[in-house]
């Protein structure tokens, strides 16, 4: 196997108040792979996603992260995005007055400009979006509403996947994209994500539950506890967690 798309080496990170959340994460993700990161509340799952995306408010104390061979931690968030790193937010942010489609097109064009490409033609963009809508079983009316404003939980999560489908990232980190969804919405989201699996794309699923994994069949499952990956395995690990809970992790839970 060639160079990993993402290589996290002994990553330590803490909050501004000094509390250490990540205590030596090691993770290698190759193109085409789907990884699931599971773990109890407070184990550091969302912090890992935030640090990878470059959110402020975290201090990296030690370790390195390579993404497509580059030092990820030295890049600005928008640069990481343009390089193909996508984070689906656990709590997508509402931005009143900003049209959903206008936002998505602005984002796509910002990324294209960084690559020296021309802006996408409005008609072409609209056709691409409509195609993806059907895939996610999404209501077209959502395109014309303000970004996430007043969206239901399911609508917000679908909208995240719609953005992913349009932005076509190389590495997608989906932070609890399954939380708070009813079974129909979960199926729609899972179907959307499944359709975005590609040989040149890797997906990291952060989740509490196994039910999403039943539909998405990850290649690797990791268990995060107290800021460290304590177990790694195949799909069977997720099933085991579902049966026994996180209790078998012993101390620290």
């Amino acid at each position, binding site marked *: 196997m060639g160079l990993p798309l993402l290589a996290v080496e002994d990553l330590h990170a803490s909050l501004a108040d000094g509390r250490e959340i990540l205590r030596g994460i090691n993770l290698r993700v190759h193109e085409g792979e789907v990884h699931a990161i599971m773990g109890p509340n407070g184990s550091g799952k969302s912090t890992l996603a935030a640090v990878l995306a470059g959110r402020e408010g975290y201090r990296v104390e030690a370790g390195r992260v390579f993404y497509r061979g580059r030092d990820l931690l030295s890049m600005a968030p928008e640069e990481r995005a343009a390089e193909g790193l996508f984070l689906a937010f656990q709590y997508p942010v509402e931005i009143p007055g900003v049209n959903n489609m206008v*936002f998505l097109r602005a984002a796509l064009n910002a990324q294209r400009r960084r690559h020296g490409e021309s802006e996408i033609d409005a008609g072409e963009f609209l056709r691409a979006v409509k195609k993806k809508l059907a895939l996610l079983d999404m209501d077209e009316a959502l395109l014309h509403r303000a970004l996430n404003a007043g969206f239901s939980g399911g609508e917000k999560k679908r909208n995240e996947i719609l953005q992913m489908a349009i932005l076509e990232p190389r590495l997608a980190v989906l932070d609890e994209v399954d939380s708070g969804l009813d079974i129909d919405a979960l199926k729609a989201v899972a179907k959307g994500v499944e359709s975005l699996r590609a040989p040149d794309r890797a997906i990291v699923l952060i989740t509490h539950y196994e039910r999403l994994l039943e539909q998405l069949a990850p290649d690797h499952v990791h268990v995060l506890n107290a800021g460290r990956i304590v177990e790694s395995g195949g799909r069977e690990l997720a099933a085991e967690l579902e049966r026994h809970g996180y209790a078998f992790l012993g101390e620290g839970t």
Partner: protein
Amino acid sequence: MTLPLDSRETVRFLAEEGYKYGFVTEIEAESAPPGLGEETVRFISGKKGEPSWLLEWRLSALAAWRQMTPPNWAKLRLAPIDYQAISYYSAPKQKTAPQSLDEVDPELLRTYEKLGIPLKEREVLAGVAVDAVFDSVSVATTFKEELAKLGIIFCSIGEAVREHPDLVRRYLGSVVPQGDNFFAALNSAVFSDGTFAYIPPGVRCPLELSTYFRINAAKTGQFERTLIVADKGAAVSYLEGCTAPQRDENQLHAAVVELVAEEDAAIKYSTVQNWYPGDAEGKGGIYNFVTKRGHCRGARSKISWTQVETGSAITWKYPSCILEGDRSIGEFYSVAITNNCQQADTGTKMIHIGKETRSTILAKGISAGRGQNTYRGLVRVLPRAEGARNHTRCDSLLIGDRCGAHTVPYIETRNPSARVEHEATTGKISEDQLFYCRQRGLGEEDALSLIVNGFCKEVLKELPMEFAVEAQKLLAVSLEGSVG
């Protein structure tokens, strides 16, 4: 010829026709010595060759002004102004004008570039001594002739006094009397020039009117006076100002704008104000004390104010509507930005006199840096205003933690059937919102601009299309450096 709706296109189209008229040099320029007294007023009036009634009118304004003191109720901090140290009449200075854009402050040029101001206009705005000034004079003249065919009068106040004295005499000061307030009285005594527009009965003005197009807006006087009259059933949309930053030697500006809407008439007045706000430490910058008022005189008349205020060190401004005609309508849409050390105390007054009068107020305040932004508004319903309705919404957006937003609504109703609603919100641009945008690939300033434009959207959509696009860019430029 048919008149296209996009006024900028019109400028180009008309400009291509070439000059029909030469440039007439005004009476040799002189400046009045600093100070304000009867002599000053007589000097100004004499320079302009005004009739005696107007001189008397100015003198009575001066007499009123002398009895007045500057208002101190606004939430503004400023040092006292020495009114005797100001020169109230000065001729245009030409010898210091740069000869080409190469001699203009590169910072200013960079801003023009960002705003997408056409090259030709950049020269004029930057005060370059070029033929473009001739262009605008000739263009304005051609434009006026087209309007004249419809019976529309659109000229300077000075010209209107000479050519249409009866109209001016009938309406001047009828909405904002000479002694209305300290700054209006000052303006009435010494106003330099300004704009006059009259739309005859039943005529809908086919073009957005602006002061000599916006090109000449750079030459706005210190004490400007505007009077717009829409006669019965007439309609007009007027644009004031310019998105480009304007350099001005005069620190104090005190303009007066009067609008009169007769029965079934409609006036839409849009402003984009981007005067020099002073440097990041608050040095310099224009003091802008404006009195703007519209009178819905006839039944079913309508006056709508839209303003985007991004410039000036101090803004003191309350475009108002007197809703006298039954079922008349007043609207006020505002975006005010204060960054660095800017202070704005702005809002509106809606005075409901007639039956079933309606008013809408939508004010968006954005504060960044150490900016202080106050919305101050009055909704007054008089006893006769049966069934009057008002809806007010004031939203404030804070960027950073050193700025301030204040909302001061006054509501007085003396008719029990009136319905007055007031909503106010204050929010902060959150780190979450900025991060979300950046995670999708938008740079920090693009993200801020997107969020702010979303916040202002309902006001911006009230602007004429061409202005709206520029205003969006202007918001972004005004907030540069306020994040990160």
